[in-house]
Every structure is written in C-alpha cells, then in structure tokens.
C-alpha cells in the first residue's frame, strides 16, 4: 500500500504516498464529524505509544486516532533517567514486542532513535518526533491543512519561520512540501539556519516582511527558550522585533495569508495573540487534521499483511 513499512520520516516518501495519506486523511475527517466517531478498521490491533519525551498534545492526538480506529492503545512514558546509555531502550522495546503488539509510535530526543528501534523489533514503527531530525506526522497534518485551505500544495508559496536548525517540524515540512511541489522559503536568525539547507531545494530570506509579502501560508515555529543563553538568540524582544509574526506585520500586508503553528504557542514572542486567534490562523484546524492524519497513517501502515512492504 505505502512504499515503506514504517513511517520514520517524510524524506524518502514518494509523492504518491504522501498524496494517498492526505486523501485518506480527509476521509477520516468525515468520520470525525459523525455522531459516532469510530470505525472498526484496526479492531484487535495493539499500538504502543512509546514516549521518551514529554508531549501531551501529540500523544493525545495519536491516542485519539488509535481509539477512533478501534485499536487498543497502551501508553508508555519513559522517564529521562532511562535515557542513559543503553538503559531501557532496547530492553523496553523488546519487552513490549514480546507482548505481541502491532505498532509502536515513538517520540525520542535522539535523531535516528526510531530507525534504531526498527533494528530489533518486528512491529511497525511510527516516528512521533526524533530529536531534531523529523516529525513526519506533523508535516502530513500541515500539508493536509494547506490542501484543505488552498485545494492543493503544488506551486504554493510556503514560508517556515523560526529556529530551523533545531526543528524537526521544519525538516519534515521541507521534505514534504518540496516533494509535493511547493515553493519553500525559510526565515529566521542566520545562525539558526544551516547553510547547507538550500541543498534541500528551499530558499532562505532573513527579511520577514518580504517573506510575509511573498507567502501564501506561513508556518511559525515555536522559539525554544533553551536556545537563548547559549549565544543563539539574544533575547525574546529582539526575536519578536526581527522575526515575530505581529499584528502590525500581518495587517500591513494586503494579501490574507494563512497562519500555521505546530503548537504550543509562545504568545507575544514568535506570534502575537491577535494573529494566533485571528481568522487567518488555522491552528485549531491543524489540531483536528492531526487526529485525521494520524488515523490515515495508522490505517494505511497497519492495513496490510507483511510481504508487500520494504
């Protein structure tokens, strides 16, 4: 069905697969509008949410998706102490698999951790975020939201603003959007955008006003407070002044651009409250599309016998 057995990243997913996932996700949106929001497709299947990093939103989104598909859900939150070398990772994974589960949704702070997981369990692995590497389900829901708003992704001007270097949301979105034919421009402090990133088929512009004028949609990344202090972002006020999506900037622009944000929002830092709550922002639609996208991914990955998959 899909060309890969696992969803480790969007990077090498072909266009057809991404489109299939998005189209199927729209069908699951319809299910989410029914009085009884459940289909029996994954009945009898067990999915483990293996979260080594705190994340209430993503985990709940996955859990809802699993339950709406009638799958059984098990949550496993590992404390940060078990992240020490070797401790827990392999053993935890193999223990879980010994209990005969079908899929693992994993979030881990180390890039490559879900790939590493596939080396010693047989179950299907879905990456819910591996450090600064990829967050493929976020990219899917973002693209689904764009398709919903614009009818398609090809030739759309999409800007991604923020700390690109440390953002898995940025990477996955870049891979997905470029594959689907969108024009992508990155904007943010130069020391947070790796110079090699243009090799991925994107443009870079440090002038946020130009970028806002150019874009059809803008994906605003969360500024992580840990990045301040180690010589990366001097202060919140400086960031807001130079890159903040402020009401003033948005109002100055004649075109009504679509505002996206993966959440949680730092109101008044990367984005003003007024903008986040405005009609142009589709942030809450993204949340609903998140459940639908995750249902689509679970359905398509789990819905076939082995043998057909890579």
């Amino acid at each position, binding site marked *: *069905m899909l060309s890969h057995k696992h969803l480790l990243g969007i990077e090498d997913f072909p266009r057809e697969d991404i489109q*299939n996932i998005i*189209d*199927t996700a*729209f*069908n699951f949106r*319809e*299910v989410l509008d*029914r*009085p*009884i*929001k*459940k*289909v*029996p*497709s994954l009945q009898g299947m067990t999915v483990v949410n293996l979260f080594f990093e705190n994340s209430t939103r993503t985990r709940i989104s996955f859990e809802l998706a699993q339950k709406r598909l009638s799958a059984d859900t098990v949550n496993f939150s590992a404390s940060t102490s078990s992240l020490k070398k070797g401790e827990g990772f392999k053993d935890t994974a193999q223990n879980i698999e010994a209990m005969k589960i079908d899929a693992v949704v994993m979030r881990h702070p180390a890039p490559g951790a879900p790939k590493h997981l596939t080396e010693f369990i047989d179950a299907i692995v879905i990456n819910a975020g591996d450090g600064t590497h990829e967050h493929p389900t976020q990219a899917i829901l973002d693209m689904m939201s764009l398709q919903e708003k614009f009818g398609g992704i090809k030739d759309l001007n999409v800007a991604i603003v923020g700390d690109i270097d440390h953002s898995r949301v940025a990477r996955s979105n870049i891979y997905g959007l470029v594959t689907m034919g969108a024009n992508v421009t990155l904007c943010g402090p130069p020391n947070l955008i790796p110079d090699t990133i243009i090799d991925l088929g994107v443009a870079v512009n440090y002038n946020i006003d130009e970028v806002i004028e150019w874009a059809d949609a803008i994906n605003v990344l969360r500024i992580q407070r840990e990045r301040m202090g180690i010589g990366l972002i001097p202060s919140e006020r400086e960031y807001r002044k130079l890159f903040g999506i402020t009401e003033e900037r948005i109002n100055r622009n004649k075109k009504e651009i679509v505002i996206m944000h993966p959440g949680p929002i730092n109101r008044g830092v990367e984005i003003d409250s007024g903008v986040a709550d405005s009609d142009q922002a589709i942030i809450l639609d993204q949340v609903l599309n998140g459940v639908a996208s995750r249902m689509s991914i679970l*359905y398509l990955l789990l*819905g*076939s*016998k082995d043998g*057909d998959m890579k």
Partner: protein
Amino acid sequence: MNNNIQIMSSKDISQKLIRISHEIIENHTDIGNVVILGIHNRGVPIADRIKELIFDITNINLPIGSLDITFHRDDFRERLSMPEIRGTDIHFSLDDKVVILVDDVLYSGRTIRAALDEINSFGRPSIVRLAVLIDRGHRELPIRADFVGKNIPTHSGEHVEVHLEETDGKEGVFLVKENN
C-alpha cells in the same frame, strides 16, 4: 478467456428500477420518513435514479446520501492494494428514519453487513431495507434484499458486472464466465 453474456439491456435496467421505486412507495405509506443511502460504488447512481423516479411519481424529494464502507470492511487485513475510498456523505441524522440501502449486486452479504455497521455511526434508524438491482445468490451471512430487480443464479466461477452510464459510460448487465 472470458465469456461475456449480456443479460440485461439499458431498457431492462430502467424497467427494473421503475418497478423497485413503485414497490418502495407501495410499502411505505409514510414516504416522508424514508431516506435513501447508495453504497459506493455503483449503488450511488442507482440510488440517485430511484430518488428521481420516486419524485416523478410522488413529487416528494427524498433525502439521499452515500456510504463508503471501506473502513467497515471485515477483510481489512487481507487487502494488499491502496483502498479506493470515495467517502461517506450523509448530512442528516438517521434516527427513527426508514433507511433504504441501495446497491447494484447482492452477493455474499458482507458489503451490506459493513453498511449496517456504518449506519450505526449516524443514528438509530427505525427500519433498514435493502434494494438491489441484481441478487446473484451465494450468501455467506444471513442477509436478504427487500426489493430485487432481477434474480440471477450464478456459479462461483462466474460474476455479474453492472455497467452504468454514470460510472462506466455505457449501460448493461453482463454475466462473466471465467475459464481457468
């Protein structure tokens, strides 16, 4: 080598659907409480035609919706190719309604079972009835049709193909024999 025998012409199909529409009206004195749900793929244009025919006779526009049973199938795990999902479209509650399910061919009954399962997500109908253009027998579940266009007995090496203008660009019902 396939052997295609045409068993019904376009005119035959029309005649059957007219008869079914009359039967539906006959059976439901309170026609205003009836809703029609076509099952994708070909059940949808057939449901549309029945709705139009009923309007011609009674001047009443029955609510109509479509059902995609993909997510409710019981053979989910055996499918190896991408599912062709056309989507379910029901904009009204089914609570206390008389639901007429419409499909082109009734065979094992599993499609109807899935449709019944899916209907539950939209409310609790007072009655569910089934109208099919063709009943070819070989039920695997205790399911029967209430309104049947034509009964066509078949062997397991045969199947019935319904072609409609809306979906196939031509009209006719064919019995296809597969020679292995």
